[in-house]
């Protein structure tokens, strides 16, 4: 099967025009379209209430879409009840059956499918090995830690070789360190088995580090679909830009859209990415901290000066905030934490630089009342 997901290129999981409207009128998911290839690891990323879990539950069959079709491997499953779909689901709260041993929990899906008991026993043993808990078969769920329970939940979902693996924020109830270790394990297992996977999370670090592709959602709609690299470096909407990674939002004014000229904090800069707008129109510039460097840049870079308002030590990086001028423009920049690094002091005036093709000009096409409105929208 595939090593990095999605090699044979054929669509395995397809959601077309999916919509979910709840009683009372709330539209949880609107116009959702996705095609995932076999073996691909897709994440649904977004804030609470954006519809990612609802969409996942529709794939699992716990909610019926009010419009649209879902198909797996070419077969339309939209009207199939959840217990006939042969998908594997890992719940946020693990949902292990408390009255059964670990072995019985894992074997439940096989038991329901009437497999012979020696086959079940063997398979359970395989899965316990797979999730690295080989001698816990006779324990009960309450005797295991959270991380262990989650691995068992994963084993249980994989036992009967489902067509698709669905994970609903599986790590959010765990401690930070365990989360990091476990997510790597999940990805490794997924790669090994080559199973098409949909992973729901609100943690962008998880989504970016695990996925072949990320679907960023907001308020029931897809904002952007792309590889982690694309999502992070080339966000296509303000929401994606601000949700994924840290971003400085800097108010500016258009000087000449065709030439890519803007001013921020009264200082002229040039932006390579195309945007539109009449002269003097207010826009917002989105800048990633790692794009910005201390000092005057090489030819072709944008240079601006400002006063240092904050220097924060964040472990491996140091984040410096620089205020550009009177209208509240603050740019954050990250420098790697090196012992030889000479850090500027607060209230000193410094020059910083960033490339012309880095920043994104937000919402330059539509008129904007104020920068505050734009920022609050995003």
């Amino acid at each position, binding site marked *: 099967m595939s090593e990095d997901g999605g090699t044979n290129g054929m669509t395995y999981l397809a959601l077309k025009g999916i919509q979910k409207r*709840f*009683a*009372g009128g709330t539209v949880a998911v609107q116009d959702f379209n996705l095609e995932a290839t076999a073996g691909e690891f897709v994440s649904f990323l977004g804030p609470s209430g954006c519809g990612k879990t609802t969409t996942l539950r529709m794939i699992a069959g*716990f909610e019926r879409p009010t419009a649209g079709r879902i198909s797996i491997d070419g077969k339309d499953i939209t009207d199939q009840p959840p217990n006939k779909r042969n998908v594997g689901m890992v719940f946020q709260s693990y949902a292990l059956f408390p009255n059964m041993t670990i072995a019985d929990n894992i074997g439940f899906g096989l038991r329901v499918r009437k497999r012979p008991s020696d086959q079940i026993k063997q398979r359970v043993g395989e899965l316990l090995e797979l999730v690295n808990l080989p001698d816990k078969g006779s324990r009960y769920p309450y005797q295991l830690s959270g991380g262990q329970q989650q691995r068992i939940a994963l084993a249980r979902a994989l036992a009967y070789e489902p067509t698709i693996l669905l994970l609903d924020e599986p790590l959010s109830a765990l401690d930070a360190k365990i989360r990091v270790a476990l997510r790597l394990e999940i990805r490794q297992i997924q790669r090994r088995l080559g199973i098409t996977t949909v992973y729901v999370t609100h943690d962008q670090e998880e989504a970016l580090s695990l996925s072949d592709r990320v679907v960023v959602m907001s308020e029931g709609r897809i904002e952007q679909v792309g590889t982690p690299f694309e999502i992070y470096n080339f966000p296509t909407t303000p929401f994606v830009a601000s949700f994924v990674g840290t971003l400085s939002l800097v108010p500016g004014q258009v000087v000449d859209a065709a030439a890519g000229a803007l001013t921020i904090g009264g200082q002229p800069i040039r932006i390579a990415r195309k945007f539109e707008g009449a002269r003097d129109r207010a826009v917002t510039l989105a800048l990633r901290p790692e794009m910005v460097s201390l000092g005057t840049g090489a030819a072709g870079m944008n240079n601006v000066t400002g006063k240092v308002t904050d220097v924060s030590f964040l472990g491996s990086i140091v984040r410096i905030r620089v205020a550009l001028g009177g209208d509240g423009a603050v740019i954050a920049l990250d420098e790697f934490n090196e012992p030889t690094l000479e850090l500027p002091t607060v209230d000193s005036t410094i020059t910083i630089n960033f490339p012309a093709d880095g920043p994104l000009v937000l919402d330059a096409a539509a008129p904007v009342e104020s920068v505050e409105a734009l920022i609050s929208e995003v």
Partner: protein
Amino acid sequence: MTGSVDRLHNELDELTRLTPHVRRDRPTRTIIGSWFLLLISIAYFALPLVGTLLFSLRDPGFAAYRDTLKDPQLYKTLGYSFLIAIITVIVSIVLLVPTAFWVRLRLPRLRPVVEFITLLPFVIPPIVLVYGLLTTFSKPPLALTGSSLGSDVLLVCAYVVLSFPYMYRSIDAGLRVIDIRTLTEACQSLGAGWVTIMWRVILPNLRVSILSGAFLTLAVVVGEFTIANFLARPMFATYLQLISGNLAYEPAAVALISFGITWAAMGVIALLGRGRREKINVAGAH
């Protein structure tokens, strides 16, 4: 077949749209079964009440009710029952709140023992309890049954014992929610003594629990017959039994009034308990 299922689905969706608070993720079969069971249960519970109502109305012009409400004994016994109930509640609170508090704070290992004691009234039903009380307290040195005051004391104490299971549980549940250790230490560091701690900090936080337990005790005391009867005290339930032997329609009216009082007490408990996840364990009837 599928056509009608689809139609049922559509109708359910429509119904769902109109009644958003209903849990509709259940299969149709279950919902129909649930309604069926519910209606039968309502019929079972309503019929005896209807029967009582009809009987009470046989005397034309609400005569049964008018005569009942004119009987001074009704008010005397009802008032007496309420009085006993209130005294019982007060004694119960004074006895149980400090105990529950102390056990939680200082004697956590004795908690199972105390809980066991509060479950004893279950093992010793009212008839056995009153039997034992009469045997114990009818002879010196503990002769109480001779005087009416003595019997009243015995009555209250018996009811306090009867209220142990749910008063204690209610109070304990309320204490579990507030961090009494930290509160107590805070009070002590500010110089407060035990009485202040109890009166100003603990009790106010237990208001809902205590009120729930109190209304439950009220309902039980007003409806209690066995102990009242054998201790020969003029309680509401014994009055009811008396008139049911002598009069025709009035007992029906009184029975409904008694039901109404209990319902009012429960309604208050429900109102108080709104928003709390713990439902107070209720005592059974006898």
